[in-house]
């Protein structure tokens, strides 16, 4: 291929003639993707053949997940046979009453053998942790270092009590989830390991080891859980988990891990301290006990889509090939 003829021109300096280069002449070696039938068929075939296995393995992984879901918010505060509004009122007044014992016992049956680690989640529905007012109501600077406890910007209306800053400030911390679960199997307590449920990065960098809760939940209304003022924030893993605000109004958060296997049909007794008030806004509370696989929790959606897309691709490819052969035959 000829190239750079122009550069050999002696008068290049005086002449304004544009210097030749493949770039300036828009003659760069180019590649033009031309989708030939063969290529398209191959592409679809490959797409189909890779997607279907992915989808199937995803589906089987999802199928292997064993999970127990128990919605306990209504069950724990029976409202009798009253109409919904009345029941709502009853429950709200029940939950807002500090004096009452809020212990509630539930019995769950393990449907399949569950191998450890088994994760215990709580799930809240209709709780807009992604509301703009809520999401912004925090101050990471305060959480990170002890010297910044006065930095309560964005934390209103839970910034200070009588002029003293609340640590940790903000609505998110204020509304800390405070139901507790204790599990027992055949009256033998099943220990729930609550260590290591928060992200390591949160513990090391985002929350300070020298920041201790102050003035937290000292004033009504109490939004949720209280914090042990002796333990620095980065050790309060429940808080750390809670502070990672969820994407959607219904979300799960990790409560802890059970580090023993559960057998099929075993009855598990769960003693719930039903403290958290979701009743005012009709939020639901669920306890989820689940195993995980490589895809995480149970979710068939991705697998189904993969199989569907793969199937369609394969079908298209086959249709193409048939058409192609028919045409060729003619």
């Amino acid at each position, binding site marked *: *291929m000829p190239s750079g003829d122009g550069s050999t021109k002696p008068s290049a300096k005086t002449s304004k003639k544009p210097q030749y280069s493949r770039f300036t*002449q828009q003659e760069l070696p180019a*590649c033009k993707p031309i989708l030939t*039938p063969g290529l*398209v068929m191959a592409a679809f075939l490959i797409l189909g053949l890779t997607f279907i296995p992915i989808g199937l393995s995803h589906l089987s992984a999802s199928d292997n997940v064993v999970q127990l879901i128990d919605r306990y918010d209504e069950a724990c505060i029976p409202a009798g046979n009253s109409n919904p509004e009345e029941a709502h009122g009853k429950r709200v007044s029940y939950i807002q009453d500090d004096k009452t014992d809020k212990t509630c016992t539930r019995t769950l049956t393990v449907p399949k053998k569950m191998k450890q680690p088994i994760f215990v989640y709580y799930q809240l529905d209709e709780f807009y942790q*992604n509301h*703009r007012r809520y999401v912004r109501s925090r101050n990471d600077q305060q959480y990170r270092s002890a010297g910044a406890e006065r930095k309560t910007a964005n934390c209103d209306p839970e910034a200070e009590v009588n002029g003293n800053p609340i640590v940790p400030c903000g609505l998110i911390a204020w509304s800390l989830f405070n139901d507790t679960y204790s599990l027992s199997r055949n009256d033998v307590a099943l220990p729930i390991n609550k260590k290591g449920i928060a992200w390591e990065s949160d513990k090391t960098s985002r929350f300070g080891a020298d920041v201790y809760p102050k003035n937290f939940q000292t004033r009504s209304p109490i939004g949720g859980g209280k914090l042990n003022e002796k333990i620095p924030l980065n050790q309060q893993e429940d808080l750390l988990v809670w502070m990672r605000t969820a*994407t959607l109004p219904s979300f799960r958060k990790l409560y802890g891990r059970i580090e023993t296997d559960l057998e099929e049909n075993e009855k598990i007794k769960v003693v719930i301290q039903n403290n958290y008030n979701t009743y*005012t806004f009709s939020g639901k509370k669920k306890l989820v006990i689940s195993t995980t696989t490589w895809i*995480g929790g149970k979710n068939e959606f991705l697998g189904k889509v993969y199989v569907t897309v793969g199937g369609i691709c394969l079908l298209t490819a086959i249709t193409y090939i048939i058409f192609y052969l028919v045409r060729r035959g003619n």
Partner: protein
Amino acid sequence: MSSDKPLLSQSEPISAPNTQLHNHDSSLRICSLGCPCHIESITSWVADEAQQCNLHDLKEELEENSAPVEDKAVSGDLLVRPAVKPVRKESRSAELHPKCPPVERKRLVSWGGVMDLGHKVLEVSLPLPRPASPRVQDSDKPQTSRRSERFHQISMQLEENIPHHDNPRLIHINDPKKTNDKFEFSGNEIRTSKYTLLTFLPKNLFIQFHRFAYLYFLAIAALNQLPPLAVFGRTVSLFPLLFVLTVTAVKDGYEDWRRHRSDRNENNREALVLQLDEFRPKRWKDILPGEVVKISSDETIPCDMVLLGTSDPSGIAYIQTMNLDGESNLKTRYARQETNKVVLEGTAISGVIKCEQPNRNIYEFMGNMELKGQRVPLSQSNIILRGCQLKNTDWAVGVVVYAGQDTKAMLNSAMSPAKRSRLETYMNRETLWLSTFLLSMCLVVAIGMCLWLKRNKTQLDTLPYYRKVYFQKGKEGKNYTFYGIPLETFISFLSSIIVFQIMIPISLYITMELVRLGQSYFMIGDRHMYDSSSNSRFQCRSLNINEDLGQIRYVFSDKTGTLTENKMEFRKASIWGKNYDYVYSVAGSSQYTDAAVEDAMAGRRKWKLKSEITPDPELMKLLYKDLYGEERIAAHDFFLTLAACNTVIPIVTESPLLSGSESSLGDSQISIDYQGESPDEQALVAAASAYGYTLFERTSGHIMIDANGEKLRLDVLGLHEFDSVRKRMSVVIRFPDNTIKVLVKGADTSMFSILKKDHPDDDRISHATQSHLNEYSSEGLRTLVIASRDLTSEELMEWQHMYEDASTSLTERSIKLRQTAALIECNLTLLGATAIEDKLQEGVPEAIESLRQAGIKVWVLTGDKQETAISIGLSCRLLTPDMHQIIINGNSENECRKLLCDAKAKYLVNSASCVEKITEREKDELQVPSQMKSSNMPQHYTAQNDVPGLGPLALIIDGNSLVYILEKDLETELFDLATSCRVVLCCRVAPLQKAGIVDLIKGRTDDMTLAIGDGANDVSMIQMADVGVGICGQEGRQAVMASDFAMGQFRFLKRLLLVHGHWNYQRIGYLVLYNFYRNAVFVLMLFWYILYTAFSTTSALTDWSSVLYSVVYTSLPTIVVGILDKDLSHKTLLKYPKLYAAGHRQESYNMSLFWITMADTFWQSLVLFFVPLLTYRESTIDIWSLGSLWTIAVVILVNVHLAMDIQRWVYLTHIAIWGSIIVTYGCIVVLDSIPAFPNYGAIYHLVKSPVYWLSILLITPLLKYVQICLPSGIQASKLIGSRSCLLACETRKQYSDWQRVIGELSRGREVADQLRLMLRQSPIDSSATLVLPAQGLVSKILETFTHSLSILSAAAADSDEVSQLPPLKSEDSGESCKTPPPPTKDRRGCYKRRRSSETRTKDTASLFEDGHAWRKYGQKDILNAKHPRNYFRCTHKYDQGCQATKQVQKIEDDPPLFRTTYHGHHTCKNLFNPIISHHHINNITMDDNDNDNDNSPIMWSFATTTSHSDVSHPKSTTTCVLINDSSCTADVHINNADADADAGGVKQENKELESQMIKPPPSSSSSSHDYFVCPDDHDDETSSLKKFKSAPYELGAFSPAGSNSDVYSCTESTHSMEMDIISMAVFDDFFDFKS
């Protein structure tokens, strides 16, 4: 005194009350518009003709005014040179007006009115001979006391007039201090830069915020600063604005820095300024008004100055105004006699100049000078302007009146008004839609918010995620950022606007700007648009309308300097009935001219001309003979007439001889420069000089001619100028021997009637001349007839009496002069005729043809007269002989109306009836998808139609008629008629009329218009049109300054429009749509999420990601693609001009595409949002992680979307697209690594999860699958559009191809006949003189064959191509991807069978060359044969895949007989192998002379290619053309008429090819088989050859693979639909990228 005259005529109307103005109002208007102002090129008689015609009535009325001038004419001063100049002024002043800004304009117009009037009067005096030399005037002075009285009176009036003009400017000569005591005048420092270091920031920001888009940005950023609305972080929200502002500021700063630099250079130049009674150098910037400056020859004038004196005693200075108005000829300026004397004496001048305030009218100046109590009027002829150059004058001294920014040059350098591209206008319409979407989305959010608040009203106080009430002390019970539901709703509305702000793609504006910058870079750098003759590149002066180039429907072209070179060249002459049309060859004339002629030529060498003409040797011989014999005398007179009968002024400069070789002549060499108003006359005089009749001196009373060394002094007794009635010009000359002759030249129509007809010889000559004239004019040459007559003394007496009487007459002078002329212009002896070529610029006809094929209408607007316009129209193939010419030249409104109506009635231009008559093929063309049809579509198609049965129409209209038509309601009629004609030629149009015509089209259609011109008279049209293109030609910079694009040659327009225009349009169109898509997909994604957050305008994405999305993550690929992507290669685009129609149909950007894109966007955003959402439903994922997933997904999605739409991948595209994705990841990682952000660490957790990757993986193919299967409307519409276009193209082409083939072949026949004749006439042994002409003839024959061959083969290839197209199946374009073509096997290796079927055997007596390069590859003995059989194959078997073989065997010994058996055909590319053709040319002559065998067959083998179509349908046809002759047999085997598809290319390149025949073919050694690499034409010199070669080469390469599915199947694309339309295009493009 001479300078008084303009004042005289100007002052007359000024002093007159306004009523006079009204009286002449109507006629004046005619003048201003009807006067052809295109002066540079047209001959003086054209100008005069026009004036006389237009001003006739006016003239009579105002005759009186010019009476004093007439007196002077008696003196016999016949110089007319300055006479025409005022016309120029008038035209210029007229065209300057539209450029003025409103304020300026107002004033100018009021002035202009008066000035115009002045000029009208001035023009009246024009036809009079006017003394040019003040010397003559001086001598006149005493005799004209009456006149001077009158002058005085008039100048008084003028003086009175000046104070009327409020606040005149006072300049004290040589007293700058006093002049500037009030500091009101600016110094001479110029500043074109906008900013200084200090003002840069505020001023630049101020200018930038003039843009609406930036204000929107600013408003959004400001909104975001309000606490309740703070959606983004405060600094973050400012980022995009700052980014955009910075980029623009840097760009502006750089531009300004360059301006600063050039200003500095300009300001620091030095000039001689009178300081302390001595001229000392001073910097330009320090020069002040009032100072006296001395300019030497060839220096540039630093400011506007009134001339005080020059080196010439009469005060003349010549200046070149190239920089100002672009005219290359010299203009004369005068210093007032009063001052000139003083200056020459060397004493200091003091005085006061009063003049008008600075204005931009470069053709006007008014002022007076007070010298020692005496008032002297000053006018335009006394002022020299900044930027001009002093020429031919040793020095000039002047006083500065305007300096620096006040100079007319600076005032005129204002930027042309900013134009806005059509696409951008449409884009704004869609932006409006986007705003509607935006607002409705915001409304949804607001309403949702409102409802949600209402529902949760009771709980808002305590709702953990809302908490609107404080419970702390002091603030208890107070609301926390809650302002009540209505206000909250409104706030939510506002904040959603902030969140969705990029729905309106603000970044698009800056992206477009950058893309256009890049496109301009490539346009400027295009070597195909570089003009080597003027050393000028393409220039983009406007950066806003690149894409408009792709949608041009009308091209309005100037003629002179644009289509033609504005170089008149004497081409041919017919003298005494004999035609001299020697076409000089490269070999030079020396060998054909004998010694005598040499001498003669040496004689004329004494005079060195600017332009050399190679004279006809035969004619030179004739001229060298003694002055004896009718023919010789006629020739003598002929050239005398050429030299004498004109108004050209020779400017003689002596220079010492450069080399000793010519010292034999003994004297120094004198170079002559002919200055004349008319290039025609200059050409004729130059021609006369070339033949030894050199005009070297002209004074008022005599001329001096050097006739072959003999110096003749001829007294000029009288001169009848050219006028439109007589159409001729004559001079009465007294020879030294006292014989008196009338020398006449004129148009043939007016000349033949006044020839003498008493001699039978005359008849013969006149017939011969007439036939020559026809021949010349059919070639598009301008012709003039030359005649002469001897005058007897009686006749002379009579004439002199009448002439004197007529020229002093006060009334009806022109009629009297005409009568006088008629007295002597009769009984003329015809001497001959001349033919002058107004040289067309290179490539003009081809360019026009291509533009026409592209559906662009080319209108020519010229100041030339009708005949010239038509002849140029013919020569540049605008007009074709089969066209019906509608000529409109009416002199009144009614006449015009009648002519228009007649034409309409005759050619039934009625859109309704036209539509009915659309033939079948046009219907094909109409099959564009319905959504494509814009309002202008039907009109376009009627316009394309030729009236059935009548052939195409051409409208020729003259400026005079346009005056009536453009101002009256006839406009509509004209528009209807004009749009239904294929060609419109407007002749004799004034600059403003040009603009008027452009406006006519612009105002009545939506079509884009482009105006192209080179002169100052085109400025108005260039500014009026949507796109203005300036030609950097000889007429200087005026047009270029006003233009949007400037280039060196007209032919670049083809490339500019067809290639760059197409690309730019397609790129920008896509860019806009993609930007809409890109931003909308993002915004919709945010919107869906907001529905999940209780309408609280939360964004899952981090602030930075949202901001960086359009600035960093996705911006670069769009820019790169917008600059670099090409849908089709430039070769394809040039080959199929019809593809340009894509722009006409608005294929790349239209409403439906927008809606399709939006629908696509909607769907994509749904997938994009919901796949991750559903995947992570009810999981522990936090908002930032999912946000980061969405971020990366949307970035990948839009980049892949872009990637799928890219037509051509180059490495930059790869870098940009994949680089962007990587950069996005990088940014996300960085952002997630900063602990201060809440999203800290998210990405590290995400990447560990396979589901994350799976969902990203899923999103893209899921969407792309849909895109592949259901090709979007973009491709569907493109598909249908180009298919129909191609079909229409083909059917038309076929017909014309056949015509062309027939034409070519018959031409070949003619030439062959000539050859036969020639060979017969001369005996075989005759001289070598035959060789050259014979060679020429042979090459002509060859040429015709090659032409017809290539046409045929192109046609065949094309028709194949069409038939290969899969049937069009309505709009279901999905069809084509389901119907792949029947696969055909690669048949390589199977050619043996094919070969056997194509065997030819030839028995010859001797071994002969058949014109092919053979390579022997074997030899074997055959049973029962004495001699071995030799096997040959084509040399190009491997490099070009040529499969031809032959076997040669001697079958008899005595006489020897060889049998040659050919197998297969040559597919190698030696159709035009120069070696072959030369070889055969030699053969002819050799055969004739040496061989006994007269009938030896010579075979020219034009092997082309085998068919590249299916094997089952062999298209091979063998055509044999035999030219039998006694001595020459041309046996032309056209083996296969299926080769090169580029008929147009062949035709165009032929010229170059011929000249390059000598060159060896470029050796290309490629050994690939399936895909061939065509050499790109990088080098201009060999490009044409290579290009040509490459065409058959490609196909040759393909022929073995002709049935190869690999390549063929490429054409059946499923995704890039457009590709399968033009299989050829694919081939081309395929090569392109494979290389």
